[in-house]
């Protein structure tokens, strides 16, 4: 008989795997088999059932991290496909950048030179872009998103199908009520409603948004900061999701790495750009400060 705890873990894992339903089901079945075998072994050794379940799960580690590792193997063929069509992808992203240039009113002023250049790319290549499924996600570390950005529209569009995860333990540490901080804050804003709010074995809370909801978030973030810098807009978006976090607690949570943003393949690419910019920023702090 499947243990509820195992199913919760496997559900979390499945939610964060950027794979097809069949692939996710297969992975869940394989891991469930292992968990139950381990549970049988431990209980035969005289370990209390509750402790045995806890041990069996602990040996798999954090579900999000495991999902990330499993995706790595599964996405190998996908990666090859993406490399083959990288030119088409770039053209499509340029078209998206053009779209965003005209859909974010608060950012029309002060368009960076590189965004203008991107906008000249023909939009007809859009349909050559490889697209991941809407339920496919890649985990990235939110701390990296503090990096300075140079092409905000290009990057923001890639936050489609954004997920924001909070570690419940971190919220408790800061004496923040999880319900108020996340769910109600979002409802109070009236801007977005999370498609899913799940509480999982590791007590993380996962918020998942559609692209439309994300657009509303981006628009809201843009209004709040009146800036064309993607990093500023992102921080505003995060503050919306974080609700009652005050800025100091928010910074602390970021520093601890307690916040994780998930997105699809395009998010990953966008974040990679952030990471590179951030690395450059760290390497030349004096220059960045002067700017």
């Amino acid at each position, binding site marked *: 008989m499947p243990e509820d705890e195992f199913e919760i873990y496997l559900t979390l894992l499945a939610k964060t795997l950027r794979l097809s339903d069949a692939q996710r089901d*297969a*992975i869940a*079945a*394989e*891991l469930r*088999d*292992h968990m*139950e*075998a*381990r549970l049988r072994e431990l209980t035969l050794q005289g370990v209390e059932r509750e402790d045995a379940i806890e041990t069996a799960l602990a*040996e*798999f*580690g*954090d579900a999000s*991290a*495991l999902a990330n*590792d*499993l995706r*790595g*193997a*599964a996405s*190998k*063929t996908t990666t090859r496909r993406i490399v083959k069509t990288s030119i088409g992808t770039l053209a499509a992203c340029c078209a998206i950048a053009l779209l965003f240039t005209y859909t974010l009113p608060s950012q029309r002023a002060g368009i960076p030179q590189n965004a203008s250049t991107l906008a000249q790319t023909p939009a007809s290549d859009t349909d050559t872009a490889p697209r991941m499924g809407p339920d496919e996600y890649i985990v990235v570390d939110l701390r990296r998103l503090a990096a300075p950005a140079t092409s905000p529209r290009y990057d923001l569009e890639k936050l489609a199908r954004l997920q924001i995860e909070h570690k419940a333990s971190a919220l408790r540490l800061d004496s923040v009520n999880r319900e108020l901080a996340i769910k109600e804050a979002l409802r109070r804003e009236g801007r977005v409603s999370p498609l899913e709010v799940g509480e999982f074995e590791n007590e993380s809370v996962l918020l998942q948004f559609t692209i439309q909801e994300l657009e509303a978030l981006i628009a809201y973030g843009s209004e709040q900061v009146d800036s064309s810098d993607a990093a500023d807009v992102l921080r505003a978006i995060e503050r919306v999701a974080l609700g009652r976090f005050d800025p100091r607690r928010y910074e602390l949570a970021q520093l601890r790495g307690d916040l994780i943003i998930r997105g699809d393949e395009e998010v990953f690419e966008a974040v990679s750009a952030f990471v590179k910019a951030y690395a450059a920023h760290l390497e030349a702090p004096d220059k960045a400060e002067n700017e």
Partner: protein
Amino acid sequence: MPDSTEKSQRDLFRGSLDLMVLSVLADGKQYGYAIQKQLHLHSGQKVQAGSLYPLLHRLEADGLIRATWDKSSARERKWYELTPAGEKKLRKSAADWQAYIARLQGLVLPAVRRVASQS
């Protein structure tokens, strides 16, 4: 010192996991839990489940092992086995490993004897 030795052994273990998994599967089909047990038995080190499955899936994606599902019993089970490419990789890696060990022994063993004779 014991900590250093333990860390050294774990580093060696991690570095040779691919080869060890391929070696375990050289004996025939195995499923994940059994592979984990075999690895523990032969190395004295425990590879966590959270590390084992990404490794197995990576080897599968690389075409070195293949998997089949046994659905004949109430509990479905995924079995892994070596592919021809995996067998080739195993032979090559094992040869490389043996050559490396031989070279290392050529350096280390005389050094140990010299140190022993001086003490």
